């Protein structure tokens, strides 16, 4: 799955392309790490090693059973949040983050706008009234 960095590009786009390739590589590296953890918990500990792990019992739970019916699920949730949070940083590092204002700042701006114009900008609720 090599990125097509060898394609003939115009000179002016090369800087942006290198940036894009770097971003994608960083993304893929992170994904590979997280998916390895996913596979270790979801398949290795929960299924392939279930029998030997079931010999160990903690709090009534045979360990393989616990990984398969509790532990892995919790790990999956954590993995997704790690991905979302890390990608926020990666997006900024490579300058591909979306132009989105923080919730607090958006509230402030909306309030300021309401004060000056007496109108609310189109939000999720206001959109319904159209």
């Amino acid at each position: 799955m090599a990125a097509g960095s060898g394609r003939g590009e115009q000179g002016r786009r090369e800087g942006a392309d290198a940036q894009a390739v770097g971003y994608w590589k960083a993304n893929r590296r992170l994904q590979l790490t997280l998916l390895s953890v996913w596979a270790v918990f979801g398949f290795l500990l929960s299924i392939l090693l279930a029998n030997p792990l079931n010999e160990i019992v903690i709090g009534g739970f045979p360990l393989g059973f616990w990984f398969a019916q509790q532990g892995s699920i919790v790990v999956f949730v954590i993995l997704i949040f790690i991905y979302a949070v890390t990608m926020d940083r990666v997006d900024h590092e490579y300058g591909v983050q979306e132009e989105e204002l923080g919730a607090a700042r958006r509230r402030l701006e909306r309030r300021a706008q309401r004060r000056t114009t007496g109108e609310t900008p189109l939000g999720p609720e206001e959109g319904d009234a159209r």
Partner: protein
Amino acid sequence: MTVIALTAIQTWALVFAVVSFAIYVGIAIYTRVKTTAGFYVADQNIPAVANGAAIAADWMSAASFISMAGLIAFLGFDGSIYLLGWTGGYVLLALLLAPYLRKYGKYTVPDFVGDRYSEIARLVAVVAAIFISFTYVAGQMRGVGIVFSRFLDVTLTVGVIIGMVVVFTYAVLGGMKGITWTQVTQYTILIIAYLIPAWAIAAELGDFPVPQVSFGDVADELNGLQRDFGLTEYTEAFTARPMQDVFLVTLALMAGTAGLPHVIIRFYTTKTVRAARYSAGWALLFIALLYTTAPAVAVFAKTNLIQDVANQSYAERPDWVRNWEEVGLITFNDQNDNGAVDSLGTTTATDVELQVDPDIMVLANPEIAGLPAPVIGLVAAGGLAAALSTAAGLLLVIAGAVGHDLYYRRFRPQATDRERLRAGRVGVLLAVLAAGYFGVNPPAFVGQVVAFAFGLAASSFFPVIVLGIFWRRTTAAGAVAGMVTGITLTAIYMYLTIFQDMEHWLGISPEGIGAVGMVINFAVTIAVSLFTREPSQEIQELVEEVRHPRIAPAAAAAPSE
């Protein structure tokens, strides 16, 4: 059954059902839409947490709410296939699909497949989306019917029709926007309805009222009970399925989850790519609340069941057993005529004396635990919420396939927004009618039907969408060949093993074959792609664009110029 107790339960079930239905329709009227963007993607204006709750409700169907704990109760350790499979898929979804499909931002899954590959690929994707959604929606309508017939004493057909009318009303009026906010409400109802009985029973059976913690000791006790009753230990692995099949079914359910069109389209509704990533996290967190409780519910229900009936005289069975016997979900067949229950199993097992439909484990739980009537009524409303929320999401996929992918993209690209909106609504109507038919005449029991939809999604959509994003070189011919071989082989194997009683190859069940179909799809797509001409510059640029969250500078600047 005792008339007085039942009337109280029925009254409460009716109250909760009517109030929740009124809320759903109220939301639909409040959020009614006038544009196709509102109808298909809720104006891409849904906050991450709300979308997470909507995904959770969209996702957790009658199968999760009603059937899953019961299935696990009878499968023991091997029930992990559902727990792992139906949660692990979200990791794939969050990492490999959701952010990029959100960046692409079109209305349906076939939209991406069609634009990335070709018109033929779009058509194959439309057919696959309709096929998968119908397989899935049939189970939901049946779930509505089961809840109605049990709690409100109407026939299954009447129950299905009431469900159809309600879901049709809010899907037609509010489209995706109405469905989203309804699903947020439905998540709230279903999670409360699931957790209250579970916590109450945990407090009763275990030492600690948190089901996730206390079911370890109860499971230990259950192992002993099962041993004494001549069953294998509950926590012993691979008693119901061989290890390779557990592995493959889990994989098929995971990839299937990530490839299910009604889940994917929910990610189109967020404001940003960033919000799509977070909404996957919120979704799985909300789902995990139920999914970490379900195995505990399974252990509690199984323990109660064995304690109440095993080796005991059937004439002295408790009231809840009698209640479910009357609706035909528990049957007793005294094979050795000793009047006692000597063996028990699910309705699919013929050599057991007490046959129990797994669906009742959740529905009967509050009764078994002796919880008051309002709680039981709430469980009924929760079951309805779970079934309706999933049905609505699926109906929108079918409506999108008919009104957007076929009518607009294939036949009338010049259609106005108004005409397209009407086409979408007609699509919902057709979908509701078909879903109702399948609900009344279901192919198999809820959980099983749904499990097949996953195999089909895993073997068709998942590989071509992932490759379409991660491997620029994937060609249209490759994708079409991959989808067609993947889904065809999977469907044929399912058909042969289920309907023709063909022996399972290498112990692979029809639920697990989707994982094999997926691998074949990947292999065929890659092989054919390598032998066909590399995709055009435009398509490669499209791939480049979906990979990066920020819109291309030219496009971003356009509106202000």
